[in-house]
């Protein structure tokens, strides 16, 4: 009997505790909501694990990498530890080693701890309100080369916990870079690292697009007398050029449903979107019209295709249902709407809208039909590209006097420049493979 009472009292207590915790709820950020709240985070000083010393140089480098990565997240604000009353509130890296009170007073929502033991790192983020561990990861054999990778992986895991979407820090962006009179294709991570050259073909290499698994990049090559279809394979590091049966014009190749190439060709007098077969021969025409059709863009399932068409007299954005072949017009305002990009989940459509002050990026919500401007110049803002999360939007802008890549979000957050090295940068295309 006595035992039963003790059990019931305990279970009642447990229930109370649970309900309090439920009321607070874990901290998440709804990136698909109408807006977002600012989340304050502080990076607590690194600690030695198992009485070892903190290696000061790599620890500092790691903290800087994480801080730089997090600075790309528009809803995260890094609060320096110096603003806390009483200084460092932690004695170790685990939840029990942290005094959350001064952080709660300073309105800090999240605290990150880092523990070091030689080349072994443990990194955690805690909620200051509940003490809940948001994310905890450990990395072995972290050297100078792999430090950045560890920082990227950790930040990606952290962001995934917060937003439910993965892949931001480790999904590369392919883009076009001007080199004297030629344009070549490169890739870079959104946080501006791992800049890699893909082509060195001369001429103009334009419109890069990723395969759904992120192993291939298709692009247009313009030589002196014709266009060619180029395909880069990252597994073999080889580029294959295709011309046969494609005609003189190859515009905006993308990988469509089942990774088949979809590309605008001109085979009978007008530029139309064609589906190619496995051996890169035109198989069928999509959304046939006697006018210009270019720039196809697909969602991850490949069930919907957005594209630009001149069928109404001016270029506008249209959607085609791949199953029924039915085409409907999406944009109705303005006289020049081009370069659509569908979000991976197919809900949002970003495109370039020409205004009297230059091009701007607009966002169309396909479920509600609502539209809004998400970039504001100056100069031209062009080539929107959704990230794997459908939250970030990369684009190219001439706001600084020359075209460079920038990062904003679906909500139109203040753009951040992506460092891409020397030369103008155009046509970002984001690898969304991690969103499967």
């Amino acid at each position, binding site marked *: 009997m006595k035992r039963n009472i003790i059990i019931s009292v305990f279970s009642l207590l447990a229930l109370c505790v649970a309900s309090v915790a439920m009321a607070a709820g874990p901290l998440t950020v709804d990136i698909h909501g109408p807006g977002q709240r600012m989340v304050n985070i502080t990076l607590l000083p690194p600690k030695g694990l198992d009485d070892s010393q903190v290696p000061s140089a790599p620890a500092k480098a790691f903290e800087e990498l994480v801080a730089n990565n997090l600075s790309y997240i528009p809803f995260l604000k890094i609060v320096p530890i110096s603003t806390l009353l009483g200084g460092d509130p932690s004695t170790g890296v685990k939840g029990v080693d942290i005094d959350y009170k001064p952080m709660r007073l300073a309105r800090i929502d999240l605290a990150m701890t880092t523990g070091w033991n030689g080349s072994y790192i443990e990194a955690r983020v805690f909620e200051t309100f509940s003490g809940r561990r948001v994310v905890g990861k450990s990395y072995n054999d972290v050297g100078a080369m792999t430090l950045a990778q560890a920082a990227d992986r950790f930040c990606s895991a952290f962001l995934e916990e917060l937003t439910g979407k993965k892949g931001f820090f480790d999904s590369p962006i392919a883009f076009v870079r001007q080199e004297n009179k030629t344009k070549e294709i490169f890739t870079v991570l959104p946080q501006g690292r791992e800049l890699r050259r893909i082509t060195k073909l001369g001429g103009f290499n334009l419109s890069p697009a990723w395969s759904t698994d992120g192993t291939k990049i298709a692009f247009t090559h313009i030589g002196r*007398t014709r266009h060619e279809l180029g395909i880069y394979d990252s597994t073999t590091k080889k580029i294959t050029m295709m011309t046969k049966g494609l005609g003189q014009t190859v*515009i905006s190749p993308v990988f469509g449903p089942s990774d088949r190439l979809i590309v605008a060709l001109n085979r009978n007098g007008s530029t139309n979107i064609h589906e190619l077969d496995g051996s890169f021969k035109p198989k069928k025409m999509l959304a046939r019209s006697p006018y210009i059709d*270019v720039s196809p863009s697909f969602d991850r399932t490949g069930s919907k295709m957005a594209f630009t068409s*001149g069928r109404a007299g001016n*270029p506008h954005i249209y959607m085609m249902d791949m199953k029924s072949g039915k085409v409907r017009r999406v944009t109705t305002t303005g006289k*020049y709407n*081009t*370069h659509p990009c569908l979000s991976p989940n197919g809900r949002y459509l970003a495109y370039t809208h020409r205004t009297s002050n230059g091009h701007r990026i607009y966002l169309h919500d396909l479920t509600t039909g609502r539209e809004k401007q998400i970039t504001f110049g100056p100069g031209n803002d062009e080539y929107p590209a959704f990230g794997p999360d459908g939250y970030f939007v990369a684009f190219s802008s001439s706001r600084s006097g020359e075209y460079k890549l920038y990062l904003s979000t679906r909500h139109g957050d203040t753009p951040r420049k992506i460092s891409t090295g020397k030369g103008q940068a155009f046509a970002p295309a984001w690898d969304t493979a991690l969103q499967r």
Partner: protein
Amino acid sequence: MKSRWSLAIMVIFALALVVSAGCAKKKTTSTPPDPQVEIKDDTKWTPPPPPVEPKVDEAALAAEAEVRAKSEAVEELTSVTIHFGFDSYELSEESRAILALKANIMRKYDDVRVVIEGHCDERGTEEYNLALGERRARAAYEHLVILGVNPERMSIVSFGEERPINPAHTEIAWEENRRSEFVVQ
């Protein structure tokens, strides 16, 4: 015998009439008598030197002239570009006239092959401009085909906005950049 005499008399009379008529005419004329000009020429006539045998033969000369004429024609074919309105691939009257001249040259020199390039100004966006440039090149191509140029001798390439001839960001520069160019291969 009598009739012979009368015939002789008639002849004499007729002659007299002619002479008297001539005299009468001379009397009415007011032109002075021709002045007598004495031509004196002391120089001795020397025959012109016999024509020098040409060092190059006629055929080579003609060929050279032909080459020059052809290079001038090619120059004319490539130096004149045709221009378009914003977001348009319609051929203007002026463009048609230029294309007619080009067609003449193309028909005359039937071994000349051209690449027709389509170009756009920077105001549009890249991919749509590539298609628009293609349309511009194709408009010129199709017009030349109508004017009797063998389509096999022409090909099309669009550069979109990649190769402006005037890099400025002005109305005039944009007008210059919206064009079809003809490159002889």
